[in-house]
């Protein structure tokens, strides 16, 4: 168990005992990452702020459901996922959730992918991945969850979580490589055209 996780567990216990300061501290530590996760799930929709608020409100209503034996981050991320899925299910007509914004959801560029392309290219590459692969990939590489934790959140086996993340990474690499090849080919043909014109 990491130091950060130990501190979060201690904060949750204080929060369950009725400490408002503990809640503020938990919010301060987890809200930015949870927001980015929700932003990924909701395709960058404007509803993310509401979903984030609802996640913490839900955490408050159900704070008794937390057992100090659980790691806090997977528990809160799992809760955020529930909030997103339940609301999407409950409000099919709620068009905002299905209205992805023009700009892509913000998340840090995966260290493994950094050398493969620009931030924007990587974001676009991740947005083009199948949703289950993209989610496993981000949960593992961006938010640092272990595959066992991802499995518990998604209701799959740890092996399946690992397979999804690595398939996602392989597809992302492939997409970025082919993007680079097509860009180089375009550059080459442009240069060839220029040389031809210069020759003529």
């Amino acid at each position, binding site marked *: 168990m990491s130091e950060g996780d130990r501190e979060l567990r201690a904060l949750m216990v204080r929060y369950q005992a009725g400490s408002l300061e503990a809640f503020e501290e938990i919010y301060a530590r987890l809200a930015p990452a949870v927001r980015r996760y929700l932003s990924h799930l909701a395709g960058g929709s404007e509803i993310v702020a509401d979903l984030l608020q609802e996640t913490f409100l839900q955490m408050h209503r159900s704070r008794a459901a937390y057992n100090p034996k659980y790691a806090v981050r997977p528990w809160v*991320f*799992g809760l955020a996922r529930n909030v997103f899925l339940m*609301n999407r299910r409950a409000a099919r007509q709620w068009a905002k959730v299905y209205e992805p914004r023009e700009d892509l959801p913000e998340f840090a560029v995966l260290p493994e992918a950094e050398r493969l392309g620009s931030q924007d290219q990587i974001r676009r590459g991740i947005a083009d991945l199948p949703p289950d692969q993209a989610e496993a990939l981000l949960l593992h590489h961006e938010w640092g969850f272990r595959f066992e934790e991802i499995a518990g959140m998604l209701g799959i086996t740890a092996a399946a979580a690992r397979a999804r993340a690595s398939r996602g990474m392989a597809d992302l690499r492939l997409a970025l490589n082919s993007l680079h090849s097509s860009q180089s080919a375009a550059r080459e043909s442009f240069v060839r055209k220029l040389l031809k014109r210069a020759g003529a």
Partner: protein
Amino acid sequence: MMDRSPKPPEALMRAIAHDIRPVRPSPQPFRLALRMVPLALLVSSVIVLAIGPRHDLGILGPLLAWGASAAQFVLAIMLVWIAARESTPAGRLPKQVVYSATIAASLVVVFVTLLTFSTSPANEPLLRVPPRINEMLRVSPWIMGFACGIGSTLAGGVLVLLFRQMFRNSLATRPTVAGALYGAGAGLAINAGWRIACPVSTPWHALGAHGAAIVATVILGALIGRFLGNRKLQIGGKHP
């Protein structure tokens, strides 16, 4: 990655501050499932005591009578444990495990039913009631089926409601599935007791009446889970 963020929004803080009373942490799924054991045992025992044990217990022997019921009871608690895992945001089991356990529970019920019938094909409703009533039940077996079906559904319904109270903190992504699972657990636990009391072992009765009661508790659990789950997780829902 844990970067600092601005403070929680004003409205959220107000809602939290309004209801910051201390709470007691829920037990872990396995302990929660174990807590159901006395409740389920109590309801099952009341059924056996109220109706009385079946007359062919000697023919069935302790293994097929009490052993098969104990196996069903253990499976029931296992289903409740799976429901408790399903209700924990980061503790869900793989779908394959959930479906395999459900199928295994159904197969055990069918297997026990057929084995009981092949060992003691009792089809006479010999209850500890006046002979006139036994005669009436013999002439119209559907009455017995109806009584067993309704009786086990009601007993299962009571257990589902008690389970629901224990699952009040459930945070299931699929509340209908979680509800169906503890409904199945309740139905199976009741069946474990009911089969010790019911004097009819024909498959059509055991599966048609008792099986239908299990299905009814599954549906009841699923409906309760779905209703409460939807009410709980709705944006703009009732705030504390």
